[in-house]
């Protein structure tokens, strides 16, 4: 009986306590830099697309929400012809970001993507591409990969070492 009265009194004391509600649309919550939200495709510091259409993100995706088609430009550089993420399926697990060998696909601290029509949740490449390098400002895949593309031989880029001449290793 006494515990009942004590309980009522304790609940009453909550009148004077601070409310814990975050009034969301007026009061935005803090999102950590590594929050896994809306997915973007980033660009090199020199403005080229980072994505090399290797399909690793599409393979890693547990819900198969990424679809892309690889193609090559006149220099032999690979890029996606189309790149499509169906956000109505996406579970924001971040596996695509982990799988990406070129830091192209990244998750951002933004979750306000609500739409009235499901079809609008399918983002095309134009919707995904941003005009910057995202979380990795200085990174340029084609300057460190050592891959030969049109106009640049193997190991000739700024941060590449010249290829080893395997024949010179002979005794």
């Amino acid at each position, binding site marked *: 009986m006494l515990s*009942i009265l004590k309980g*009522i009194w*304790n*609940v*009453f004391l909550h009148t004077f*306590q601070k409310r*814990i509600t975050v009034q969301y649309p007026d009061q935005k919550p803090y999102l950590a830099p590594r929050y896994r939200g809306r997915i973007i495709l980033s660009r090199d510091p020199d403005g080229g697309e980072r994505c090399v259409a290797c399909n690793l993100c599409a393979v890693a995706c547990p819900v198969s929400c990424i679809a892309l088609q690889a193609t090559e430009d006149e220099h032999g550089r690979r890029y996606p012809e189309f790149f499509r993420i169906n956000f109505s399926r996406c579970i924001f697990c971040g596996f695509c970001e982990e799988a990406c060998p070129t830091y192209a696909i990244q998750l951002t601290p933004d979750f306000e993507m609500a739409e009235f029509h499901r079809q609008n949740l399918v983002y095309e490449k134009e919707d995904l591409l941003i005009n910057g390098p995202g979380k990795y400002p200085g990174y340029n895949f084609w300057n460190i990969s050592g891959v030969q593309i049109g106009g640049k031989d193997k190991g000739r880029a700024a941060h590449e070492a010249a290829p080893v001449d395997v024949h010179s290793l002979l005794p």
Partner: protein
Amino acid sequence: MSGPYPMVSVLGILIVALTLAAGLIWLERRLLALWQDRYGPNRVGPFGLLQVVADGVKIFMKEDWIPPFADKPVFILAPAIIMVTVLMSYAVLPVAPGIIISDLNIGLLFILAMSSLGVYSVVLAGWSSNNKYALLGGLRAAAQMISYEVFMGLSLMGVVLMAGSFSLSAIVEAQQKIWFVVPQFLGFVLFLIAGLAEMRRTPFDLPEAESELVAGFHSEYSGMKFGMFFVGEYLGVTLISAMITVLFFGGWLGPVLPPVVWFLLKTFLFIAFFILVRAALPRPRFDQLMSWGWKVMLPLTLINLLITGAVVLSWS
């Protein structure tokens, strides 16, 4: 008894009671939120006051669905009964001197009778829904009402003994010297508990028990029929609070402020207390509820009645 224009009193009390009942939905949600460190509805209108209007519009627009397996006439009748019986009780409630629809000389018995009739609403709703959960809710309501009604009536007999009348305004007048809560404290506590049980409020909301019985007796109800049960419940809360005010806290009596304000203030305090109890206490098991009612509350009420009777006899 009701002044020169009886219809004015009738309409006034009707409108005020129904507005209060609707406003109580908002009040309860805000107060529960306050005690759970939340905000509650605060978006629609100032302080979320128009939430009730929005809910009302929504509930009127809803499809008025009657399940094909239900007992149709009874299903429709049940929510009407609770509204009618609770509103009838307001007829004998003395708000202030002159503001009363009908000053029956057996007003107290009338209210007790009406609240007993109100149980039919719940039982019939549970029965006519033809649904096992609704039926269980109805059965629980019937058992709970029978056991709590007994000492609800008896706990008030002490007040009646002291006032020497069943008329509610005579009971208020008898409290000029001292509020009955002082000599009848046990009766007050017992009536408070019985009132909670009578209005099926948490912690005595076993007929609804949404964690066990879906929504209990009103599982199958939707639209405005569901709304009627809801409004009926809040009207009941207001009625019980007003009853406590009249019987134990001197009704409209009080210094400085006008009588109506005193009455509303005291009633509001008890409404807030009922909401606080809802925020604080869990629901007991059904057998605990029953054994508590019969084995603890009823003997206590009888003891209270005996002592009051003895004291009143020896004084007079």
